[in-house]
């Protein structure tokens, strides 16, 4: 027996040395065997006596049950700050919460307004977002849908599943470009049971020596991450160019000259070089007294051509006095000022919009005049 003991000790020592290089961390292993899974194991031995094979002998069976590990990850979803406009209501900061434990859990959610001077994504907190409210993505589209995403807690998130969480805040106005409101979302693991209800907070069970008991072990029972609402601006530049289409002498020709009676096309290009898209843009252009607006110059006897980014051109009629046909364009009563926009509709939910990335960061408006 003495020899056996020393042999076993040596084995254990070898084992320990061999395992030193293998480091496993339960906190980084996303989900594995579900809690409450039984693991059973036994060995068998085959042998001969006097050259005669003997019946295979089984060992006892060792059994243990996989405990419930509680773990989660909270992460800001976009990898950068959330650009907002001054005075914007319900600005959406998106996070994700992932259940990295091995059992379904509920999670409570809370949001904190970080102190002035805190730094998130390089933005120093200078303002506070008001009315911070949390909503959980109900339809798994990772986009906040008002009236659809209603819950303020996460109900029954299965192991390894991820859900989007939206924090809505109101941005003060006025607020300077670059002003930032930093926030932190915290999720806390709760038990799960009743559907649609936030069950009580999860609790860690004490150490138990019974391998058949499912322990509840906290790897982490809370997690948090930060985001920053940063006030951005849309910076619009306007360039106006003209091209003589025809004159009474040369007709429609590239050689046409700007002489009385010539038709000139004006092209107004609006470019957004800011970090925030400009919505419901309205452009007003004064028409000089020696020019007369030409009606019916474009497709379908329309007056103005509008090209938004890479989209097909849209056309409108610039009637006098007011936009009585509701297409967004009109001239003043005297006909010497043109106003162009696109009405907000299902097709154009933000009206005439100048985005921040090509080709949508450019809008071109064309209209024609004649030289008196």
């Amino acid at each position: 027996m003495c020899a056996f003991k020393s042999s076993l000790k040596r084995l254990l020592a070898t084992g320990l040395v061999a395992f030193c290089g293998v480091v496993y961390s339960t906190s980084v292993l996303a989900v594995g065997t579900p809690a409450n899974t039984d693991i059973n194991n036994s060995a068998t031995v085959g042998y001969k006596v006097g050259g005669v094979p003997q019946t295979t002998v089984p060992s006892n069976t060792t059994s243990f049950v996989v405990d419930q590990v509680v773990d989660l990850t909270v992460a800001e979803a976009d990898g950068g700050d959330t650009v907002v406009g001054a005075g914007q209501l319900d600005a959406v900061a998106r996070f994700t919460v992932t259940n990295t434990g091995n059992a379904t859990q509920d999670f409570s959610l809370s949001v904190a307004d970080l102190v002035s001077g805190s730094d998130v994504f390089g933005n120093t907190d200078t303002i506070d977002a008001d009315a911070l409210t949390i909503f959980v993505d109900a339809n798994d589209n990772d986009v906040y849908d008002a009236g659809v995403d209603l819950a303020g807690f996460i109900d029954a998130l299965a192991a390894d599943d991820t859900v989007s969480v939206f924090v809505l805040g109101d941005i003060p106005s006025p607020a300077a470009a670059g002003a930032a409101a930093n926030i932190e979302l915290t999720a806390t693991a709760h038990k799960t049971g009743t559907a649609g209800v936030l069950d009580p907070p999860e609790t860690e069970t004490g150490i138990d020596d019974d391998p058949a008991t499912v322990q509840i072990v906290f790897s982490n029972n809370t997690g948090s991450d930060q985001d920053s609402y940063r006030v951005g601006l849309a910076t619009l530049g306007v360039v106006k160019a003209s091209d003589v289409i025809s004159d009474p002498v040369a007709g429609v020709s590239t050689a046409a000259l700007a002489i009385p009676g010539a038709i000139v096309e004006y092209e107004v290009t609006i470019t957004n070089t800011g970090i925030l898209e400009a919505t419901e843009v309205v452009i007003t252009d004064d028409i000089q007294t020696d020019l007369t607006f030409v009606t019916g110059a474009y497709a379908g006897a329309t007056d103005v051509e509008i090209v938004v980014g890479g989209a097909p051109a849209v056309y409108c009629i610039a009637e006098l006095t007011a936009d009585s046909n509701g297409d967004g364009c009109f001239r003043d009563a005297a006909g010497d000022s043109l106003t162009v926009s696109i009405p907000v509709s299902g097709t154009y939910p933000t009206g005439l919009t100048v985005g921040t990335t090509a080709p949508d960061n450019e809008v071109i408006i064309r209209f024609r005049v004649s030289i008196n």
Partner: protein
Amino acid sequence: MNCQAISIAKVVLLSGLLLLAGNALAQQGTIRLEHQAEQWETVTDDNGAEQVQLVKVTNVVPGDKVLFTVTYTNTGDQPAENVAITNPVPEHMVYVDDSAAGDNTSILFSADGGENFADASDLRVSNDDGSQRPANASDYTHVRWVVQSDVAPGTSGAVQFAAVVE
């Protein structure tokens, strides 16, 4: 002669029965296997130093490593030959590379549910497209230790391997 032979047989039978009554495990054969599962636990001693010790498995979560030890004892009165101990890698667990150990044994592995055994370096598995590749630790389904010499009556040995809970 006949009568004497019978009486000897009776004595043998009787002693066999006594053995059975005295030790239930003897019914399983003359080699007895003892299986145990342990895990590493970090404890802080009185001086505040952390030490890792092996304790009986009680609390296991995914990612935890478990050490399985099988001790074999020849409880018979004859040497046991060609002793081969086989232990499956449990479901929901993955064999830890290079963890199998056992004095005076050659260690073989199976990657096909215990049908075939080979040295780790010779073991191959099929890819989905039918081609073959060398098996790695996570492919192992069974570990087998072949004891290289006869196991004398009354002697013991131990073999072990580690696996991680998936």
